[in-house]
C-alpha cells in the first residue's frame, strides 16, 4: 500500500506547484506589494496573462474600453478580484482534467472547486473572516483527488464497494482502503507547496474539523460545511456526491441558523450562475 510520503516523493506524479497563489496571497494580505510586483509575478506566464486580460475585458465588469495590459486590468478590477481570477485559472490547470476513479468528467472537479471557493468566500463574509484566504481553501480543497487518480489504480474500486456495503462517508472508506484520505493528501501537498498553515490544515481537516488546531479550527468547520453546500446546489458531481457526513455541532461551531444556511445556499447559487457564463466567454 502506497503512503502519502511515497506519493509526495515522486514529483512526476504530482501536479505542477501553483507557486503564484501563495505569493499573491502574501501580497494581498500584507499590503506589502504593489501592482508592479504582481504584474511581474504574472508576466512569466503568458497564457495566464492573456486569460486575465480576456476576463477583465468581459461583459462581467462592464467596461466600455478594452485594456491590453495587466497594469490597467489590475487598476480596473482591483487586487482581490485579480487574485480570484488567477486562482480560477490556476486551479483549472490543477483539477480541470478527468478524474476517472471518482467518476468525474473533464471540468467537473474544477466546477466543484469553484463552487466551494465561492461558498467559502460567502461564509467568510458572513462570519467576518478573510475572504481571499477562505476562497483559496475552497479552491484547493480537493487537489488530492487528482493525485490519488494518478497513483492509485484498481484498488480504488474497493473504496466505493465499501461505501455501498457499510454506508460510510468517502473519507472513512478511503482511510480503510488506502490508509489515508484525499483531504490528508491535499494537506500534505499544500504544505509541500508552502501554503499558509490555515489553508493546508483547513483542507486536511475538512471532514473532521474536531482535530484541527485552535488557529485553524474555524476554517476547517467552514470547509466542512462548504462541501455540503456545494452538494446542495448540485455542484458536487461524481460517484461520491453525497458520500459525506456533516457533524451535528457544525451550526454551533459557526453560530449559524438554519435560515441563514438556506439563504447562503441561494447566495452561492446566484454567485456561481453569474460567473459561469463569463468563464465560458472569457475562455477560462
Amino acid at each position, binding site marked *: 500500500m502506497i503512503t502519502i510520503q511515497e506519493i509526495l516523493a515522486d514529483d512526476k506524479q504530482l501536479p505542477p506547484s501553483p507557486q503564484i497563489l501563495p505569493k499573491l496571497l502574501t501580497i494581498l494580505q500584507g499590503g506589502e506589494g504593489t501592482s508592479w510586483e504582481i504584474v511581474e509575478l504574472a508576466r512569466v506566464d503568458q497564457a495566464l496573462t492573456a486569460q486575465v486580460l480576456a476576463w477583465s475585458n468581459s461583459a462581467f465588469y462592464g467596461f466600455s474600453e478594452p485594456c491590453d495590459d495587466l497594469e490597467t486590468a489590475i487598476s480596473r478590477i482591483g487586487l482581490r478580484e485579480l487574485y480570484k481570477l488567477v486562482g480560477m485559472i490556476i486551479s483549472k490547470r490543477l483539477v480541470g482534467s478527468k478524474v476517472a476513479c471518482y*467518476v468525474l468528467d473533464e471540468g467537473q472537479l474544477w466546477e466543484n472547486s469553484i463552487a466551494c471557493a465561492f461558498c467559502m468566500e460567502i461564509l467568510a463574509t458572513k462570519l467576518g473572516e478573510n475572504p481571499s484566504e477562505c476562497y483559496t481553501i475552497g479552491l484547493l480543497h480537493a487537489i488530492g483527488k487528482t493525485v490519488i487518480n494518478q497513483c492509485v489504480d484498481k484498488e480504488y474500486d474497493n473504496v466505493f464497494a465499501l*461505501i455501498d456495503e457499510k*454506508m*460510510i*462517508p468517502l473519507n472513512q472508506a478511503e482511510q480503510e482502503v488506502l490508509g489515508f484520505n484525499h483531504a490528508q493528501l491535499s494537506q500534505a501537498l499544500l504544505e509541500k507547496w508552502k501554503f499558509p498553515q490555515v489553508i493546508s490544515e483547513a483542507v486536511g481537516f475538512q471532514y473532521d474539523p474536531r482535530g484541527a488546531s485552535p488557529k485553524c479550527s474555524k476554517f476547517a468547520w467552514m470547509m466542512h460545511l462548504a462541501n*455540503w453546500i456545494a*452538494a*446542495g*446546489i*448540485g*455542484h*458536487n*458531481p*461524481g*460517484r461520491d*456526491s*453525497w*458520500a*459525506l*457526513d*456533516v*457533524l*451535528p455541532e457544525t*451550526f454551533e461551531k459557526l453560530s449559524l441558523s*438554519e*435560515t441563514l*444556511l*438556506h*439563504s447562503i*445556499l*441561494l447566495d452561492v*447559487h446566484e454567485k456561481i*450562475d453569474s460567473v459561469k457564463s463569463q468563464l465560458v466567454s472569457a475562455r477560462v
Partner: protein
Amino acid sequence: MGGSPKTSNFYAQRIVVGVGDMTTSNNTSVVLSTYALGSCVGVVAYDSINSVGGILHFMLPDSRLSVEKAKKQPSMFADTGVKVFMDSLAELGVDLQRTNFFIAGGASVISQNTENNVFKIGERNVVAAKAALADYQARILDEDIGGFNNRTLHLILETGVIEVKTPSGTKIISLQ
C-alpha cells in the same frame, strides 16, 4: 422500414432546465433535460393524449425563506415552483386527470448522526414536493428519491419516456 429511427429523432432538440428553473413544452421533437439533481427535487409531468410535458427543478422546500427571491425565481422553491409549473402546463392545455407525474432527487448525506435533520434537506424537499402536488391532486406514477447519488433526468416528449441517470446506471420510466 421497421425499427428505423423516426424523422423527428434526427432533429431532437435538447432544452436544459437549470437549478431553480422549469420548462414545459408540446413540441414532440424536444427532449427536456435537467442535470445534477442532488438534494434538489425534479418534478416531471406528462400528458400522453396531447404529448405535453415539463420538468421543474427546485432547490428549497419553502418560499417563506425569501419572498423577494420567490417573486424573482419562483421555481427555486417547492411551493411556488409547483404553482408556476402547474400554471404553465395548464396554458398548454394539459388535463390533470390524464397527466402522470414523476419525482426524483432528494439525495441526502450519509450521516451517522440520525438526529442531524437540518442537513437532510433532500428528504424535506421530497415531502414538500409531494405536499404541493397533493394540493392539485396530481397523480405521482413513480419516484426515484433519496440515496446518496446525483441524478440526471431526460424527458423524451414524443414518447413520455424518462431516463434517470446516476453514476451507477440508467433507469427507464414511462409516463404514458
